[in-house]
């Protein structure tokens, strides 16, 4: 099984050279020092966090109120926090890569090739699996149950397990900075390059197990979200009355269920190749790497829509709310969403037009790819026509939405170019492709996530985020994007291969320098987001919106207090049409006292999730380093809590009606006492979360 018998030793193949500090000590080049610094940062960060938790005595609340919580809102927030941490690392890596390329035209630069390859591999892996996926899963987790009038998701414990598996995977990627190295095979991990013959070290193993944990977490999340939307909607909330964010979440969940298993299979088969000398994807003994490529993109293309659809949902909500208007073409938007979901499974081959298929196969997949642009284009026009005859306010989330529309269309154009095989042949694998998918994912995912974060933040925490810093962040993210990626289109047309650690074409240099400046601006955008959070927390008392409807919005989530109580709704709402809260306000039926209160049963917190996540990460770490006993302990550690849990009967907690009534009464009294605020003043302290009604109609 293992040629050098590591499996039975205490530390497997882990030795001193696994530590970047040791490597930097022996070979103090700039590149190794950067690696050592990053490793040290992880260690110092972890130690600092432990010290802070101990000093502030936050250990107990951390576990009791957060890590063991099964509240979908807290799980959602933890997902977003995880995404923020991982985004910070991966964005710094991006800046480092752009800096390297701008310095390395006919010069060695500061980052060695091996290190550079790890940078682009971790950057991609993190951004997709540990930034984008947690971010969107977090938003869906937080918002969907509130929008459908539910008190929790369908499977609260499974929700916690999904989160902890994803966090375990993210932990592995972080650990690879301090112990060992990461894969150099990119986020797609194509064999045979990631096979044992070409990369015998631990790098690809870290990648395999981190991605495996994330993909398992994602599949479970998908099941949970779909079941929640199918089964937990409140009375009267037909599918066609759901907010659009629920539609896109449903579509994303379906894609998660059907698209993620091929990835899990692909990484599992690759692991068999690496660990047990199988030959699925090797060059010899009948292996064929093309099978991996197909499996990976069978996941990879629907994944693109998993990433983008929730952002489409966010934009639908944001544009409608900040235009004070019904969404244009709700039904065609929902239909377009589902059409995209189906079509997304029919185009995977366009990721490898250059593999030598016949022209007819390439053309068929090219046309299928272009077909997706029809429903996507329809969505764009739906948002534009939503603003038509509205009252548009340029708040930070709305600005992100507008920047999204304009920027995303440009990315769509280059997408159509790439869908045409002969054009793909000349820009595939160049930075043109890199520019294209960043042009889709930065507006189409990240802007959406940031807009959603700013839009629902007051709901989740009870106070608004700073508008000024929101706009600073907007300026940085948008200008940074154009500066960082427009040059890459030019460079790609000039034939510059992606993933190049050094370049030998002086004409590339000015464009690379501009791109590096853009990357720095993007990093400033992230810093602005953190400053915004800090400033807003500091000034929270001036920006509270306790009544819960700061934007005069339309969905059920705005009909409860901010932050919402643990049980979300004191009484389960009844819905008779789309945009129920808007119509309640319109008819003067909002903020009514319910006729009676009932005891509410909520799931009790559980240790199963964190234990499973920790055990899975430990098992994976053991597998990476060939530490037999740790893998075994970890594997058992995954299943023991799950089995033990099935014997626990006391899994619910009842909140007495009196307690619900007291909290509800307090909130309703406040809603009747505070002064409603007009839209002109919605970003001022006067906005306490109660909206002054708009006139129903104004003719020009």
């Amino acid at each position, binding site marked *: 099984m293992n040629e050098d018998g590591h499996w039975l030793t205490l530390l497997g193949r882990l030795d001193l050279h696994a530590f970047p500090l040791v490597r930097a000590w022996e070979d103090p080049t700039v590149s190794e020092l950067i690696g050592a610094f990053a490793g040290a940062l992880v260690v110092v960060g972890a130690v600092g966090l432990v010290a802070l938790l101990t000093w502030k005595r936050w250990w107990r609340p951390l576990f009791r109120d957060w890590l063991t919580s099964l509240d979908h809102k807290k799980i959602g927030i933890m997902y977003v926090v995880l995404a923020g941490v991982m985004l910070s690392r991966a964005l710094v890596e991006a800046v480092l890569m752009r800096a390297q390329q701008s310095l390395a035209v006919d010069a060695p630069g500061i980052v060695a090739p091996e290190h550079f390859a790890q940078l682009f591999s971790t950057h991609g892996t993190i951004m997709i699996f540990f930034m984008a996926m947690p971010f969107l899963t977090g938003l869906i987790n937080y918002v969907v149950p509130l929008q459908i009038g539910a008190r929790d998701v369908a499977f609260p414990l499974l929700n916690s397990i999904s989160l902890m598996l994803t966090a375990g995977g993210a932990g592995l990627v972080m650990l690879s900075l301090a112990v060992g190295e990461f894969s150099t095979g990119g986020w797609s991990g*194509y064999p045979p390059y990631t096979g044992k013959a070409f990369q015998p070290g631990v790098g690809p193993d870290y990648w395999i197990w981190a991605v495996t944990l994330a993909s398992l977490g994602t599949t479970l999340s998908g099941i949970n979200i779909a079941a929640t939307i199918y089964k937990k909607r409140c009375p009267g909330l037909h599918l066609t009355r759901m907010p659009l964010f629920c539609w896109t979440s449903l579509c994303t969940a379906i894609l998660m269920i059907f698209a993620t298993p091929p990835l899990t299979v692909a990484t599992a088969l690759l692991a068999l190749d690496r660990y047990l000398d199988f030959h699925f994807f090797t060059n010899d003994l009948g292996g064929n790497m093309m099978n991996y490529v197909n499996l990976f993109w069978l996941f990879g293309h629907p994944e693109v829509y998993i990433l983008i659809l929730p952002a489409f949902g966010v934009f639908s909500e944001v544009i409608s709310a900040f235009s004070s208007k019904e969404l244009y073409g709700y039904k065609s938007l929902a239909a377009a969403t589902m059409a995209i979901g189906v079509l997304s499974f029919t185009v995977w081959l366009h990721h490898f037009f250059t593999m030598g298929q016949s022209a007819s196969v390439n053309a068929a997949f090219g046309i299928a790819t272009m*077909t997706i642009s*029809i429903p996507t*284009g329809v969505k764009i026009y739906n948002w534009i026509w939503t603003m038509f005859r509205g009252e*548009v306010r340029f708040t930070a989330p709305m600005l992100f939405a507008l920047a999204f529309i304009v920027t995303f269309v440009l990315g769509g154009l280059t997408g159509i170019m790439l869908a045409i095989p002969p054009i793909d042949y000349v820009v*595939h694998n160049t930075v043109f492709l890199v520019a294209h998918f960043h042009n889709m994912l930065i507006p189409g995912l990240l802007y959406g996530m940031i807009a959603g974060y700013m839009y629902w933040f007051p709901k989740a925490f009870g106070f608004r985020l700073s508008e000024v810093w929101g706009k600073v962040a907007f300026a940085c993210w948008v200008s940074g994007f154009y500066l960082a990626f427009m040059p890459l289109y030019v460079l790609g047309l000039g*034939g510059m291969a992606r993933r190049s650690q050094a370049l030998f074409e002086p004409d590339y240099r000015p464009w690379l320098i501009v791109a590096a400046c853009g990357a720095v601006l993007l990093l400033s955008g992230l810093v602005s987001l953190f400053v915004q959070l800090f400033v807003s927390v500091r000034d929270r008392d001036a920006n509270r919106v306790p009544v819960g409807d700061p934007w005069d919005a339309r969905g059920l989530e705005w009909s409860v207090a901010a932050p919402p109580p643990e049980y979300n709704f004191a009484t389960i709402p009844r819905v008779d049409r789309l945009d129920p809260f808007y119509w309640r306000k319109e008819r003067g039926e909002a903020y009514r006292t319910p006729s009676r209160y009932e005891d509410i049963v909520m799931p009790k917190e559980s240790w199963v999730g964190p234990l499973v996540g920790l055990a899975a990460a430990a098992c994976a770490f053991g597998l990476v380093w060939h530490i037999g006993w740790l893998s075994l302990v970890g594997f058992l550690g995954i299943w023991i809590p799950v089995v033990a849990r099935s014997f626990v009967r006391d899994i619910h907690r009842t909140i007495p009606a009196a307690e619900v009534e007291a909290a509800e009464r307090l909130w309703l009294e406040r809603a009747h006492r505070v002064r409603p605020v007009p839209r002109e003043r919605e970003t001022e302290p006067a906005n306490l979360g109660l909206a002054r009604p708009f006139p129903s*109609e104004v003719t020009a």
Partner: protein
Amino acid sequence: MLEAAPAPAPTLATARRGRALRRLAPWLGVVALLPLGGCGVLDHGMLGAAGPVADQTRSLFLLVCAILIFVAAPVLLLTPIFAWHYRLSNTKSAYRPQWGFNWPLEGLIWIPPTIIVIVLAVFLWRDTHALDPYKPLASPLPPVEVQAVALDWKWLFIYPDEGVASVDELAFPADRPVRLTLTSDTVMQSFFVPRLAGQIYAMAGMTTQLNLAADAPGRFRGENTQFNGVGFQNQKFAVLAQSNDDHAAWIARARAGGRTLDPAAYATLAARSVQPEPILFGSVAPDLFRSILTRNDPGLHAAHGHHAHE
């Protein structure tokens, strides 16, 4: 770009100035050379086409760009216009909060994009077949047969008709097209000569094909674009489209060099290394290409590759 010229008798001051200038050079470059750099950079790719395939691809690219203007323009115009006109502070604009659907408008947003996609699909089908990398190029003269082997981090080109081989230098007479048969003796790579034709993957145990040609004699940059390890960025090669005389001289030079690509020499060549200079081999072990192919895929589909065209 902006390299400081070497001063004749460098004093300390000029040396310092030179260093400062060199440090400033990239920034000056950004400001001063963006327009120039812009033209320069595009000439290295398909837009600087130097062969019929790249040329046709460029025409297709420009046609698609022109069509796509009609896709982008309405969105780029309507978004700012609507957002600004219907801003909250504009009290003169209409407000219809409960308006959310209109059939004619619905037709307007579904039908034109569909028509554009159908038009593009026609071009796509036509040109994907016309520019199929496997399709032989029209020429009065027969193509030059070249067998390309992707190695870490270099390319081996075998000329079966001439019995010579070269490493990191692909040479052919400019008046004849080239028919490349590619395989890999390592991980997957992607063969790309941006100014002549599109790219194609080279995979172990399988063959793929690429046809390319140059309009006139010239020297072009070729590269592998699929990441394959620490020497990836150095894996560039020269593509020489030569006059007939130059090509004959090139072949003669290869033969005169007297190097033989036998199994031992190949083993040295196939080891993972960056090749600093091109190498020419005057003779090649018979059936070398086939032996590389079969070694990587014993008995399965070695003889055919995986392409339906074979």
